[in-house]
Structures are given as C-alpha cells and as structure tokens.
C-alpha cells in the first residue's frame, strides 16, 4: 500500500487532525442519518414477519403438545406462553423488550433467544466468511490476469468459466460436490460440523464444501465486476497514461494504479451482497447439516416458535441494513478524496 507508515511531521499531524475532525463530522452525521432511517425498516421487517407468522395455522402450543392434545390442554399452554393475548399486544411486548436487548425465550425449548443466536450466528458467520474469503482471494488475481490482456486467452477462458459459474445454482453445486468429493472420492465429509475449538482442521474440512458451494457464484460475480472496472480504469483514465509515461510495466500499472481504484467498487458490492446471501445460506446449511442460523430458522418456523423467528429476522434485517450502511461509509472512508476533505492552499 502507500506510504501510510511514514512519520508525520508535527504541522502535518495538526493539519490532519483538523482535517480529520472536519471530515469526521459530516461522516458521523451521515451515519447517524442512515441509522435513523434504518429504524423504520427494522420496525417494518419485524412487524411483517410477526404478521406472517401469526397468519399461519397452528401455534407453538399446538406444535409442542402434538396432534393428540386436547383443546383445553392447548389453551392452558397458550395462556402460559402468553399466546392468548391479542396480536398487537404480543408484538408490542416483544418490541419494547427487543429494543433494550431482551429478545425473549424460545417457546419450544425455553432457551433464551440471545443464547441461541449466540451459538448459531458464529457458525453461519464462519461459513459465509469462509465463502467470501475464497471468492475474493481468487477473484482479484483472476480479474488482474484477465485485464492484463483483454480478449486474450486467459480473459476469454475466465469469462466463459465465470459465466458458467454464475449459472449454477448453489444447491446444485452443493449436491455435485457432495457426490464427487464425499460419495465417490470420500475425501471430504458431507454432513455435519465440528466447532473450531474442538479441532480447527476438522472444522475446516467440514466447511470446505459448503463454503465452495456459496463461494463459487460469488467468485464468478466478483471476477466479472472487477475485470470490467479494471478495464474501465486502464482504458479511460488519464493517470494510467501518466503511469505509462513514467515507463512502468503494464502489469505494475494494473496492480499499483488501476487495482487500487477498482477495489473501492468491489468492496461496496461485497457489502451489499451480504443480504441476498443469507437466503441461500439457509438452503446450504440445510443440505450440509450445518447448525447455523438458517437451520435454526427452519426449525423455528416448523415449531411456530415466534420469539426465535423474530430474533433471527431482526438480526437478519440488522445485518442487511448495517451492510448497506457499511458499503456507503466504507466508500467515503477509503476514498482519500472524501476522507481528507477540502484542498489546503
């Protein structure tokens, strides 16, 4: 990266501090404004899911007691669980507890929702994080090689493969991978999960196939995006001409100049992807038997376990909102044009 480690002389430090404070203030206000705008969204999402869940036939009490239960038993349990209260009351009860962080308890297991989330979220994060890692680590070099020789052999190949990769459904890829690696070759396990505390190696082994299932599509998407951006920079930007005029080799121009500027666009897209990704994660977790948030969600819907569902939906929505916000903020923070404010004469 750039000379970020060079010691700043005193006058510069003072000026940077001033500039930083000046820049920080509008950024902070921007963040605050966005957070405020996000609140109705969170409200809307949780309310909507509450509505949806309550329109379903049956409720937690029925699920818990099973098909043999008598109506009076059900009513008893409902009263105990607070399910007999009117709809809006129940939502309000949940809401005003939720905003202070009390997400309630599971209706089926009694476990606190917070602890359920606490044990499941890290699993899902690890899976998604692994997928992102694979996709980004490969997308950058592939895009660079493609952009080095547009319409060359490497470029055309990577375009063909990325188009194919984009067109594969993650669950199809999952099943194909299971068939090849677990069933036929037997080198990787198909179902299950091992916590990293127990054995990091095993943990990774169980996560490889699911991470690739999610990651391949991401990889193809990011590669195409980055390549297009790199080409735009190389073909359209004046500073590229300057770089060439210095006598730099084309590869260096790509990596030291164009890539820097293209990474911005990529980062914002990565942040925005997060939301849509969560949906597919549910299916993947289901196929591979990974005890993450997705799996938990499916079970909770089965059990009509509203507090758990609300908790998960709430977290999902928060993640999506934060991701969108992060995309905007990251862009303004990383771009030195915005970070360092106005020109000093």
């Amino acid at each position, binding site marked *: 990266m*750039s*000379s970020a480690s*060079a010691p*700043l*002389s005193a*006058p*510069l430090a003072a*000026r940077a501090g001033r500039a930083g404070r000046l820049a920080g203030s509008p950024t902070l206000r921007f963040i605050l404004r966005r957070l405020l705008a996000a609140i109705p969204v969170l409200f809307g999402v949780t309310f909507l899911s509450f509505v949806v869940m309550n329109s379903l036939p049956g409720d937690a009490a029925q699920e818990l007691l099973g098909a043999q239960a008598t109506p009076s038993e059900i009513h008893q349990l409902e009263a105990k669980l607070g399910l007999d209260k009117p709809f809006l009351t129940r939502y309000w009860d949940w809401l005003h507890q939720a905003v202070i962080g009390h997400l309630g308890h599971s209706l089926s297991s009694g476990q606190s929702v917070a602890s359920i989330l606490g044990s499941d979220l890290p699993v899902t994060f690890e899976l998604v994080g692994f997928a992102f890692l694979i996709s980004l680590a490969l997308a950058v070099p592939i895009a660079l090689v493609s952009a080095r020789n547009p319409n060359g052999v490497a470029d055309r190949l990577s375009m063909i493969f990325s188009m194919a990769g984009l067109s594969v459904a993650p669950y199809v890829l999952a099943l194909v991978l299971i068939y090849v690696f677990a069933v036929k070759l037997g080198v990787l396990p198909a179902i299950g999960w091992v916590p990293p505390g127990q054995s990091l190696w095993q943990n990774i082994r169980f996560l490889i196939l699911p991470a690739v299932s999610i990651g391949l599509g991401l990889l193809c998407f990011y590669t195409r995006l980055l390549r297009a951006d790199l080409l735009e920079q190389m073909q359209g*930007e*004046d*500073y590229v*001409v*300057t*770089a*060439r*005029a*210095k*006598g*730099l*080799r084309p590869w260096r121009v790509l990596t*030291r*100049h164009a890539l*820097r*500027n293209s990474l911005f666009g990529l980062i914002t897209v990565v942040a925005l992807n997060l939301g849509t990704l969560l949906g597919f994660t549910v299916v993947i977790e289901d196929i591979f038997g990974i005890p993450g948030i997705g799996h938990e969600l499916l079970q909770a819907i089965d059990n009509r376990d509203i507090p758990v569902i609300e908790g998960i939906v709430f977290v999902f929505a928060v993640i999506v909102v934060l991701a969108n916000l992060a995309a905007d903020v990251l862009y303004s923070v990383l*771009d*030195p*044009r915005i970070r*360092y404010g*106005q*020109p*000093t*004469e």
Partner: protein
Amino acid sequence: MSESLLEVSDLRVDFRHDGRLVRAVDGLTYSMRPGQTVAVIGESGSGKTVSARAIMGLLPPSAKVTGSIRFDEVEMVGLSEKALRSHRGCGVAMVFQDPTRSLNPTMRIGAQIREAIQTHEKASRGSAQDRALELLELVRLPAARERLEQYPHQLSGGMRQRVMIAIALAASPRLLIADEATTALDVTTQAQIMELLRDLQQRLGMGLIMISHDLGLAASFADDVVVMYAGRAVERAPTQMLFAHVRMPYTRALLDAIPRLENESHAPLAAVPGQPPNLALREPGCPFTPRCPSATDRCREHAPVFEEHEPEHLWACWHPCEDRVRL
C-alpha cells in the same frame, strides 16, 4: 551530448478507427538541439499530441508508425516495447494537460514521485523520498515536505501541475514534452508554470517541446515554432522570424485570432472560419483549402511541398502571405 537531441523525419502515424484508416500525422519533420525550446502549434486534431506520443513511445501497438524519430542518435521507430519503456520517463518525459485527472487520486504525492524515480534507478525508499522532496523544491512547490504525504485533491491546479513536472523530471530526462501543460490553468498560474519550465530547462539543459494551440505562448517562450495542420507541418521557423514574416495563411489566421489590446473595443474577434478536416478522408491538395482566403484551384489539386523557401523558414503553400506592416 550530441549535437542534435531530436530529429523527426517524415513521421507518419496511422490509426484504425471504426474500420477506417486515419492518418493522424502525415510527414512531420523537424529537429531540435539540446537546450532548445520548440513550440508545436495547432488546433485539436492537428496531430500535435499524437506526434508527441510517438516521440514518447506511448502509442498503442495498433498504431502504425513510419518514418524516423531519432532521439540522441537512437532510432525510436520500430523499437521493442521493452526498449521504449526504458526510454519513457528517462530519456523523454511528458507533462499532460489535466493535472487533476493525470494524477492517481488514491496515491500520495510522494509515492507517485518515488515511483517515477524507482522505475529507472535502484534507490531505497528513503533516498527516493529525499529525491522526491528535492524535486518538489525544484518545482517551487511550497511546503514541499507536507505535500509529500498529501493526496492530489488536496492541492490546487497549479500545484498539481508542478507535481506533474516533478514526476516528469524524476529520472532526469533530456527532453521534456509539455502537452498543453498550461491550458487547464488560469492565466496567472499559466505564466508561473511557463516561467518555471523555462527556468528548469535552462538549469538542467533539457530540450523542451511545448505543445499548444496558443501562439501567444509560443511567442514568449519558444526558440522555434512548428505549425501543424491536419497532421502535417505547414510552417516552421525561429520564433522571431515567424512572427515577423508570417507566410502560411493558416498561421496568419491564427495570429489574427489573438485578441489584441490595440484593436478597437467591440471589434469582432477574427476566428478561423470552418472546421478542421476529417482525417479519415484524404483529399489531394492542401488540407487547408476549404478555409483559406487565398485558396485557388491549384491548392485543391496539388498539395504544396513543405520546404525551406527562405533561410531557416519552411512552409508549404502555393500562395504564401506577403510581408505586411504589423502593428
């Protein structure tokens, strides 16, 4: 140091654009000695920028270059890309028009200068940084030490152009090409930058090629002037001679277009009528014909030859202007 720094002979550059062959430069010839300043004047589309790029070796591989460019007795045309790369920045360097877009917005000034230094010589980061500081001081950038750590957008246009010049000087080139280097700046800054360039040139003994559409600028700073039109050189002379005895109707028209204090107020500006020609369509005859007040049938049919008609004064015209009493 050789007698001749740069010799351009019959330079032709062809591009393929939209399936057509475009001859951007058509037989350009001029030369310069070390320490000399040559102004290449023309409208947009005259081929001045492309010829400069050809001297830099910055044209895309698809461009067909014929003719000869001898820099320091070394033939540039036909050199491999690798050889051209070592030449760029080190033998010839270039300063571009728009310093805002020509500097990488996400890279610190110091890093951009260091890059120019370290491409051509083995230098540690520390010594490169020292040299970068020297360069910034050489181009008279105030508060140079702080500027090293700043980003381009934190500097004004004039300052950015100084940085561009510093980058260009990093590897001690023997020839500096300023491609409309001051066009994007305000008049005061323009004068400052031009003064700086002249000063640097004299101090470092560089050759300087000024590319511009501004004859007035050439008058103040250049030793020789080459006027280009439609990819060809149409007039060339030492500055004094050119302005004293303008021959080409085109040059005359350019001169007349410069607003003068002596003219009556509210007198209409004499612009050059018409448009520059479409370079994809090569007509026989002089390309300036449609816009020339002195054009005849002969001009339409036969292209005049660019040759030395008077000592040190070359032009290509069947009906050159007579000496006129000039105000």
